């Protein structure tokens, strides 16, 4: 319980700090909102031009896109400490201070800097979900809300895990590794569309290597009540978000290896 209270204090401290410059914080949020909302224009244009896509409608895509945006934005809100670990903690030697404190590293890094601007993307995701709801005349029963929340939980775990791995790698590279953006931002980009339209190698990657498909594509199929055109059995749809948690577990193993190897660089 103590940990949660501490986290809330961390969070309110960093939010108060950002609200010292409210205009700045709001503009950053609006920037995130517009930059991510633009993709919806592309999706609209493609459907307006071509009609349907193998039985997928605009509303279906909006459901995929909206859920993955919301889960990524929450993970992004929580994981900035891992994102900047190389540049701000390892290179400067600041990490030593965190190691001396009688709390876990994860807690301190999560609390390090919670960016309000990330909610610009959350708002975008929710708006896209609303578009999907209207477009499909979607009926949000309790069961469907539960599926959506379960999907989000798996997604947050997966994207958080990716950030943890990025942090773990920076124990070796010292800098923050931008190549991971391919998996985080690129993952969100890929998960906007149903996996069934992609080439086989790409699908395999998104299911078995970095299981973004398991926290977006499969559970959203359950939400939409659609079968997988590729023939994945329906029982798997609701189990699949577990892959996000499994990925998080693996990422913490990597994190442990990196932290074990850490020798201070600061002076």
């Amino acid at each position, binding site marked *: 319980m103590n940990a949660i209270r501490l986290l809330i204090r961390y969070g309110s401290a960093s939010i108060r700090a950002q609200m010292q410059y409210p205009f700045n914080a709001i503009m950053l949020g609006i920037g995130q909102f517009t930059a991510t909302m*633009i993709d919806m*224009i592309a999706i609209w*244009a493609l459907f307006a*031009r*071509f009609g349907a896509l193998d039985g997928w409608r605009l509303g279906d895509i909006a459901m995929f896109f909206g859920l993955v945006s919301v889960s990524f934005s929450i993970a992004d809100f929580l994981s900035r400490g891992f994102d900047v670990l190389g540049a701000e903690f390892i290179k400067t030697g600041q990490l030593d201070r965190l190691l001396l404190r009688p709390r876990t590293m994860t807690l301190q890094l999560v609390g390090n800097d919670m960016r309000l601007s990330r909610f610009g993307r959350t708002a975008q995701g929710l708006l896209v979900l609303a578009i999907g709801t209207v477009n499909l005349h979607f009926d949000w029963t309790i069961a469907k809300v539960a599926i959506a929340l379960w999907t989000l939980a798996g997604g947050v775990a997966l994207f958080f895990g990716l950030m943890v791995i990025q942090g773990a790698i920076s124990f070796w*590279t010292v*800098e923050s*590794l*931008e190549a991971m953006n391919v998996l985080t931002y690129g993952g969100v*980009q890929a998960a906007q569309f149903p996996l069934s339209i992609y080439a086989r190698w790409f699908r395999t990657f998104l299911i078995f290597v970095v299981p973004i498909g398991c926290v977006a594509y499969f559970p959203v199929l359950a939400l939409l009540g659609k079968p997988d055109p590729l023939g994945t059995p329906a029982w798997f749809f609701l189990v699949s978000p577990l892959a996000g948690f499994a990925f998080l577990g693996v990422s913490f193993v990597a994190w442990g290896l990196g932290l074990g190897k850490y020798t201070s660089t600061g002076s």
Partner: protein
Amino acid sequence: MEIARPYVAAFSARFLLMLQYRAAAIAGFLTQCWWGAIKIMVYAAFYRASSPSTHPAMTLAQVATYTWLNQGLLALMPWGCDPEVALAMRTGVVMYDRLRPVDAYAYWYARAAAFMTSRALPRAILMVLVTGVGMRLLGFRELSWAPPPNAAQSALFVLSLVLMVSLSSAFMMLLNIGVVVTLNDRWVSQSMNPLLVVLSGSLVPLALYPDWAQRALFVQPFAGVVDIPFRIYSGNLAGVPAYQGLALQLFWTVVLVLVGRMWMEHVMRRLEVQGG
């Protein structure tokens, strides 16, 4: 061995650091390849799934080449102001620029053009090697970066590319002057980027937007920094429409340069210099 240790450590630290810059460049390149690949797979799915009557006035192969060109030449788009101008405004170094016996607009314009082209060139070469040559060898012929269809289109494309850089630099100058006025480089570029992405063809090729919007999309200024040159490249814009495209690029360059010059003159008349 003990004597050598600090030097070995210094070497490996510096080496790793330099590798990081290289790694950052490679990471940027990988991101662009990944983005391009996703986009093209999505386009391919839409083309496959729909009847040819709904298809835009571009073939899938042309759309693929367009996408790779766009990814390879991303640095030729006016994403923000020249970082050196922003820095000069913040630190007050801008006063040296004011003292130079050169035309201030032309001086910054030339530097903007150099900034963009120098960043674009290495990435474009790498992109041609990977998505042009590499993908062809691997058998993804239809989705690769294809060469222009004939010599005439190639010549027109070279002309269009020059105009694209000229137009982009003129856009960048407007952002530069915006920074001089507001002293805030981030807001200035953030305000134009959504328009740039949607209207240039960088989001989706302009031909993929609805038919009723085509004429308006063709004549607006942003088309000249992506859509017109890349359609000329793939042969999608040939003959009279190609010349119209070139004329539009030239027209907007002249307009933006004139507007930029007038604005800059107005702004520089009462410039406050920061710093000491």
